[in-house]
């Protein structure tokens, strides 16, 4: 009996939450567009076998360099492979690399940033190392690292993460430096809280908003760098259809078969655009202070 009373109430509540979420999104069209773009790409990546029309790696020498048609929506490449199916599967690499690098850089950046912000002794040393890392252009550092290791997706992820960490460390450290002067930290210290407890329960929650925004930019930049590495031949192993690889193989034929480079390029741009819009939207809603200093739409 009691359940019967509660159930419709709960239903109304979740319905209400859904609609308020939808209303909130309508007031933030930038986030909405970003979410839709990214959501579509995610669905495409997860359900790639359903979306694709051909086997992305099967060679059909008789169907070489065909222009886009009903049979091959984005045409075929120099080995007769279906570009549309390859582009669909390629989204997997971009998203895996983008999300992994964002997650790794966030965890490392948080850990190092929290410690340097609070433990003054190591601060000077670690920050000089970070300054040095930031002086090396990210793409150069990534390709140099990748050239020293076996070509695999794991190594691509590590090579892209290392140049992204210093910026995250700087951001976290900056937030920590202002937070440690706050009254609630003094209160925790005077109550006898130990350093790890202060860092985890009092400091970290306050860094979340700027870190999420930064993580979205890291994700966008990682997707671009992965494509560049693969395009230059120093990234994802060439037998895996990633967007950079497809473009690298199609570049020789750009004058006679432009579809091979143009379609993956458009998808690449759309994914990065989605992530960037999401980041911009989150920045404006999560952290109004940032809005003025960096400018926004």
């Amino acid at each position, binding site marked *: 009996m009691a359940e019967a009373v509660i159930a419709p109430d709960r239903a109304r509540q979740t319905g209400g939450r859904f609609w308020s979420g939808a209303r909130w999104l309508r007031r933030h069209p930038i986030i909405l567009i970003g979410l839709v773009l990214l959501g579509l790409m995610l669905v495409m990546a997860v359900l790639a076998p359903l979306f694709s029309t051909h086997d992305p790696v099967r060679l059909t020498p008789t169907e070489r360099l065909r222009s886009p048609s009903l049979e091959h929506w984005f045409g075929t490449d120099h080995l007769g492979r279906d570009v549309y199916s390859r582009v669909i599967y390629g989204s997997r690499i971009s998203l895996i690399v983008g999300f992994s690098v964002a997650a790794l850089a966030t965890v490392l950046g948080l850990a190092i940033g929290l410690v340097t912000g609070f433990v003054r002794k190591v601060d000077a040393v670690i920050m*000089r*190392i970070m*300054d*040095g*890392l930031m*002086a*090396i*252009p*990210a*793409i*150069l*550092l990534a*390709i*140099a*690292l*990748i*050239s*020293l*290791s076996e070509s695999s997706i794991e190594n691509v992820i590590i090579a892209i993460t290392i140049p992204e960490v210093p910026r995250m460390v700087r951001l976290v450290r900056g937030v920590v430096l202002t937070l440690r002067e706050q009254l609630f930290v003094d209160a925790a210290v005077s109550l006898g809280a130990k350093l790890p407890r202060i860092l985890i329960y009092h400091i970290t929650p306050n860094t979340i908003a700027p870190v999420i925004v930064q993580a979205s930019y890291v994700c*966008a930049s990682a997707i*671009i760098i992965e*494509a*560049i590495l693969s*395009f*230059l*031949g*120093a990234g994802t192993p060439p037998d895996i259809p990633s967007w950079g690889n497809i*473009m690298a193989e199609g*570049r020789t034929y*750009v*004058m006679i078969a*432009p579809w091979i*480079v*143009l379609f993956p*390029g*458009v998808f*690449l*741009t759309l994914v*990065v*655009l989605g992530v*960037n*819009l999401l980041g*911009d939207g989150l920045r404006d809603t999560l952290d109004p202070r940032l809005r*003025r*200093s*960096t*400018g*926004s*739409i």
Partner: protein
Amino acid sequence: MAALILRRILATFVVMTVVAVFVFGMLHFSPGDPAAIIAGDLATSQDVERIREKLGLNQPIWEQFVRWISNVLVGDLGTSIFSDLPVSALIAQRVEPTVALTLTTIVFSVLIAVPLGIVAAWKHGSLVDRLVMGFAVLGFSMPVFVFAYILIWIFAANLQLLPVMGYVSIFDDPGGFLRSIAMPTLALGVTYIALIARITRASMLEAINQDYIRTAYAKGASIPSILFRHALRNASVPIVTTIGVGIALLIGGVVVTESVFAIPGLGRLTVDAILRRDYPVIQGVILLFSGVYVLINLLIDIAYTLLDPRIRY
């Protein structure tokens, strides 16, 4: 103020030392035998031994570092494994196209981006502002080589206006130089333009809301005078800083752009060296690019310490 400048120079030295240690250490602290990594998969054990001997990899690591760093300090970046030429000579051969491309891109981008940002800030919230900001987000999202191929598709494949690839030196044929550099400049510039336009708009918006701008209006100053003499001057520090910091972006972009348009510059040298695992060349180019980047930002720092009295604290 001299003390401030001295501190900046010292900090730069520290940064470059870290870069040098890192560039040196990358090879030695990577998993596996460095000589075998450089030799590649098809190398025989004699090849590996030869490379080990040549690079001095069989000596204690600190001795290797001391020797390497003292050579670097006198301009000796080592010898290419692939071509047996000194790395500094290879760099000297390739430097002109890269400098030309970078300079045209910086000039072109600043000339486009700063006015765009000013107009967007002045007409804040208007259609123009939205268009500029929309373009900025798109510019950030489109990788250099994607835009490069769109340009090639339009201007080379369809309109047949511009050459697809190659580089003509400005000293040989200025007209040919402009034709060969036009598409690379445009492709390389887009992200940079987006970056500068965004920061120009943001810092102009901040300046425009200040009291002295209202005073300038009130005394009847013309709009161009208010925007350029009053607002832009006060907004210039973050804009110039961003132009300097953005050079890191350009350096990364140069590597890709030169590869797309087959320009025989430092970017091509880097990519070729990486594909051949020619480690002395990789080290040299990374040191050079990082050094130039750090030096430019040091000069910008010093310049506005001298020019802007507000920074002399």
